[in-house]
């Protein structure tokens, strides 16, 4: 199964810039479907970016984050070729995780 997470991490001058795109409906719980039924809230609550076993970025997300969330962050202390792990868990207990190599 293809991962729900697409990541690109680039190191330049000691700073790693990471861009991630996650495929997720991020239903807010305020929207109704065509039959008038409320679509239950379904959104990512927690997304972490880990490098060498240490969290370098933690995002707490609510239903007001857009569908297929995009995230960009920057951190120091990593070098080209290092591995990063990006993981998320949503309010229904679903989760996914992927590993990316810093270019």
């Amino acid at each position, binding site marked *: 199964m293809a991962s729900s997470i697409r990541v690109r991490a680039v190191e330049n001058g000691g700073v790693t810039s990471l861009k991630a795109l996650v495929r997720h409906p991020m239903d807010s719980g305020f929207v109704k479907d065509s039959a008038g039924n409320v679509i239950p809230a379904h959104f990512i609550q927690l997304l972490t970016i880990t490098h060498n076993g240490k969290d370098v970025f933690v995002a707490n997300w609510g239903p007001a984050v*857009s569908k297929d969330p*995009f995230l960009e962050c*920057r951190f120091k202390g990593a070098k080209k070729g290092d591995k990063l792990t990006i993981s998320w868990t949503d309010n229904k207990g679903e*989760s996914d995780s992927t590993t990316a190599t810093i270019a």
Partner: protein
Amino acid sequence: MKGVLGAGVASFALGSGIVPLRVEAAASLDTSDWPKKAFSTPGVDATISELYGMEATESDKISMDLPTIAQNGAVVPATVETTLPNVTSIALLVAKNPNALAASFDIPEGTLPFVSNRLKMAETTDVVAVVISDGKAYKATKNVKVTVGGCGG
């Protein structure tokens, strides 16, 4: 015979590929620290005090990059950056959303106080960025006009 064996190996590889995924799901992140109450609080000031337990003062050292006019309230790009020192947390709030808090980010040591994200906005309103620097809360505000299906006026 060789073909049959090959198919067997392939299906085994496929099967074993599913197993680690399930293990991963079982070892999913612990969301017990997720600030549930802060995510269900309407209003900017009430949400900031629920999330951080203090009031935020205005700061001109927080730069917010958001469109002045958003053609589509479902996807509003928001970038926050600050020159404030020792930042430990950044939060994005949308004043008139049913619950103001859109996202909060932990900034560990070594991570730059920069974040870019996309938000949903119910209507034209202020977007507030909150930054925790040296244990104090600072905020900056930008008004974003939402024109869903309009002509950008």
